[in-house]
């Protein structure tokens, strides 16, 4: 009885700590982004997408050669790559849209 209470007290006693534990880290401050430059952000994002596609490629190859690789790891890598590419496409669409908007501006 006392043993169970003692364990519960660790989790529940620190109520604020539990909340702060779940709080996400603050987004990157604008100043930091400003230093990196927009093209750098884009380039690093594209490199990440490329890396994820390469990982997915490698996982599929490994699975084809040796099916002891857990299947969910392969599908996870594929899905991760697909979502990264989709995010990149979204960013591109937004960029092109805003570019067109500016080009069509009546002066």
């Amino acid at each position, binding site marked *: 009885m006392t043993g169970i209470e003692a364990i519960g007290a660790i989790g529940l006693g620190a109520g604020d*700590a539990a909340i702060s*534990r779940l709080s996400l880290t603050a987004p990157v401050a604008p100043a930091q982004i400003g230093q990196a430059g927009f093209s750098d952000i884009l380039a690093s994002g594209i490199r990440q997408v490329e890396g994820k596609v390469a990982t997915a490629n490698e996982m599929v190859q490994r699975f084809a050669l040796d099916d002891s690789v857990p299947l*969910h790891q392969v599908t996870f890598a594929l*899905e991760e790559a697909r979502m990264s590419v989709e995010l990149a496409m979204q960013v591109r669409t937004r960029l092109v849209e805003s570019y067109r908007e500016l080009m069509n501006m009546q002066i």
Partner: protein
Amino acid sequence: MRAMEISRSGMDVEWQRLQVIAQNLANLNTTRTASGEPFRAMRLVSGPRGDFASMISGKASAQQFGGVQVMGMEATGSGFRRVHEPGHPHADAQGFVSYPEIDHAGEMTLMIKTSRTYEANLTAMNIAQQMYSRALELGRGQ
């Protein structure tokens, strides 16, 4: 993506747990292993990834939750079942053969539990993926 990583680590662990259970079931009647003893049922030990002390003290943030990992395997303390089979090549001087005493029902229960846990992780991953996909549609809806 973090939630999906965590779910994936859970699926990794359950996948390996199923392998251990399959090994136990396959060796129900194995009377001799490399060590010369009958087979002993194994259990997969898993635990949270990351430092336990910092997690319990509440210093770790949600970003540091790394999911779950395999800690190792340990043999269950099950004994051996002695059967009188004088014709068996592994029989001792009295004609008894030691078979592993594996809890068949227990293994089956654990297998169902493993399967359900795997499914739960899969569902969590699907939900995370759905949320991510929905977020990509932000501002696009007409």
